[in-house]
């Protein structure tokens, strides 16, 4: 079987995979990182989103072999070593942006990319449009949108008003 070498949450792994093995299967089944979830089979729900070399990606839509040499961050790799949550995780908790928790890892990973890729600021409409690839059945998205808006200034170290100036 072919081998893939990749760095996940700062730790390098070399793993044997089938050609058809998906990145999410490698993460969940070979590395035991079950925080990344599978919610569908058509690349629609976004529960499997991880960070691949700085960009969010649906790990159900990427072959494990395509990740050879990549740096991957999963939901397990976000919090600091002492357990301090990433600001996005903290804002999701503060604003009750999760209920059952199943979509949450993918939602948080997508949200971080969304905030990072909008240093100029984010409107509510941009947040809603940016979440188009992530399904949540519990919250109605209201609190997720609030949490992401609240995380923006924490991640950019300034208010949106300051960014606009």
């Amino acid at each position, binding site marked *: 079987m072919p081998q893939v070498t990749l760095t996940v949450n700062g730790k390098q792994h070399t793993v044997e995979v089938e050609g058809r093995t998906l990145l999410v299967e490698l993460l969940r089944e070979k590395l035991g990182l079950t925080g990344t979830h599978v919610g569908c089979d058509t690349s629609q729900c976004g529960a499997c989103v991880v960070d691949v070399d700085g960009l969010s990606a649906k790990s159900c839509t990427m072959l494990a072999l395509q990740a050879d040499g990549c740096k991957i961050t999963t939901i397990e790799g976000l919090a600091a070593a002492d357990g301090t949550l990433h600001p996005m995780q903290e804002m999701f908790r503060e604003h009750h942006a999760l*209920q059952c928790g199943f979509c949450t890892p993918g939602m948080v990973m997508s949200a971080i990319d969304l905030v990072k890729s909008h240093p100029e600021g984010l409107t509510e409409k941009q947040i809603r449009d940016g979440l188009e690839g992530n399904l949540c*059945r*519990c919250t109605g998205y209201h609190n997720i949108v609030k949490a992401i808006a609240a995380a923006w200034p924490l991640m950019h170290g300034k208010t949106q008003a300051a960014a606009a100036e």
Partner: protein
Amino acid sequence: MPFEGIGASVRRKEDVRFLSGHGNYTDDINRPGQVHAFIKRADRPHARINGINTAAAAKAPGVLAVFTGADMAKEEIGGLPCGWQIHSKDGSPMAEPPHPVIAVGKVRHVGDPVAVVIAETRQAAKDAAELLEIDYTDLPAVSTLKQAVAPGAPLVHDDVPGNVCYDWHIGDKALVDAAFAKAAKVVKLDLTNNRLIPNAMEPRAAVGEWDTSSGDYTLYTTSQNPHVIRLLMGAFVLHIPENKLRVVAPDVGGGFGSKIYHYAEEAIVTWASAKVRRPIKWTAERNESFMSDAHGRDHVSTAEMALDADGNFLALRVSTLANMGAYLSTFAPCVPTYLYATLLAGVYQTPVIYAEVKAMFTNTVPVDAYRGAGRPEASYLLERLVDAIAHDTGMDRVALRRKNFIPADAFPYQTPVALQYDSGNYTATLDAALQAADFAGFESRRAAARSRGKLRGIGVSTYLEACGIAPSAVVGSLGARAGLYEVANIRMHPTGSVTVFTGTHSHGQGHETTLAQLVVDQLGVPLDQVEVVHGDTAKIPFGMGTYGSRSLAVGGTAMVKAMDKVIAKGKKIAAHLLEASVEDIEFKDGKFSVAGTDKQKTLTEISLAAYVPHNYPIEELEPGLDETAFYDPKNFTFPGGCHVCEVEIDMDTGVPSVVNFVAVDDVGRVVNPMIVEGQVQGGVAQGIGQALLENAVYDEAGQLISGSFMDYTMPRADNLPNITVGTEITLCTHNPLGVKGCGEVGAIGSPPAVMNAVIDALKEYGVRHIDMPATPQKLWSIIQAGAPRMAAE
């Protein structure tokens, strides 16, 4: 100590593990030596199975075994049981055809299990399933209610004539007919409640394990009620006594009703794990969720209201066809009867009501309770009918509602359809919602929208529901084959921390927080010293799980009663230690004190004394401080409220957008306002989904054509508005917490509010009714058809 008791928006205890990827969902569980199951499912709606050749699949790489329905039948494995029996008008019991775990003889819906392949890996099992040779003879199928009732329709079950499961009724037909005969006006509305697919984000999964040394079975499963699954599967399907069967429902990623039921896959992996002597995991792919999770709704109804000249409701007559699907799911028969027709009084003092409900078998996935279950169908019918009355009579839709409300001073209120409401104030929720939505100022917004090429409408629904399910004797007399009490065990630990073992189950509702807040409130123990345990039959006492917004009203009350016992025993211990009489001991804020003195002992000191009983009234009192209480509710609870929705429809494309949504609900006492708000918002999102986006579609031949997220329109962030939530409280009078329940109100109140708004937006086109979902295609067609007429006028 920060305020963490009843009424505090405490941040959730469960969130850190979910946010950091450390949730423990069923598919995250991997047992040593585990192998995988793949279920081969019917790709056609109705066919005779002439034979299944498993030889090639059984020899495929990595395959341990292949089982068919015939293999299970040889061992006298039972069919999947139904938990509720309805009797027809003529007194005969409902038709209850067998529901084999794996199809025997015939397949009856797309998704019906035909065989299971067990292999070392999921991929190997899936590959091998491709090698199964199934010889079918296709049979004609029925998928819609219209097809099922047609004369000479194909029969789903050969021995169920006319596809009728039951033909049931409630209310006094003669009184209703008499009232119609003398009515000044009768308004009639035909309407469909569209079929929905629940789609919890976590697909169902199950891991079965047979312990070779003890012979015990363990099933890990995505369930809302592990004890119910243990009882149904153990007693009726696999014949495993409770002492040899443990069912664990760990973190569960959303349920919405669809994870209440006992499903075939649970029995398959449990049974087969002993056959192959390896733990077996099955996890649904999303396409399997679409064709095997119980669907929701699917009613076709005619509703008629008799009115006097002043618009007072005199009588309501309803006739409903309800789709059961191919087999009876666990609680399916009660949904269109006791969870639907008993709610047809709604918030109105309609003096007499008669409803008849015919439940039909079709070649579709079984239909059962989905968020609200019966009550959304009732509120949709009533609230659309009230708007149709306003349309036909020219009366103001809000005034018409007010005029017919059950007044706030009329409680307890006996409806003509069995229920007795304990409390409510429908004028208060209506007034608050209208104000929050600026209903009075709407017409200027309509005009402004029109200048932007948008048709703007506003809709109101004033709804009621019944939850806190349910008094056991009452539901037993109505056909339930189970009790619906709840249970809690409060275990005080020696150093004063507390573990709560609850029979309810959390799959997103936040019980680990909310239930802990009850302990903070009653026992004065800080939140971080309270642990709530649920979901494991080896740990928790026999409770009935979570559905019907029952966890707080029924499960919370069981906790209160168990804590009462803790306090009562604690008082005896305190009396001994403080050398006082028990009658003089008071308990407040976590301290036992002698009335009128400064002598006191903390709950922690009392707990320690109970577990280290050196100085202890050992002759009269057992050691330990660990109390259990069961609670059987006295009545349902009756949340209600008012939802106001504002939509805009793009005149060029027909695309509707919800631009404002206000929900003001009476959910009884609120324990955690943050969580209540989240529950309502989530429910409203599902209601907007039903009204505008979601629809389970079968084609004429019975094929499910909305079978993936590519085809079934789930509400996404850019389809939904911000949802403003308010509460106007009246307390439930028959439980000590005064709570009613908030899990379903959003999904019950919102669909008619949205549809009333859509129809209001189209009022210049003379539209009286549109069936859900109000898709852009439907709306665009109306606008297009209406345009020439509008131009001509």
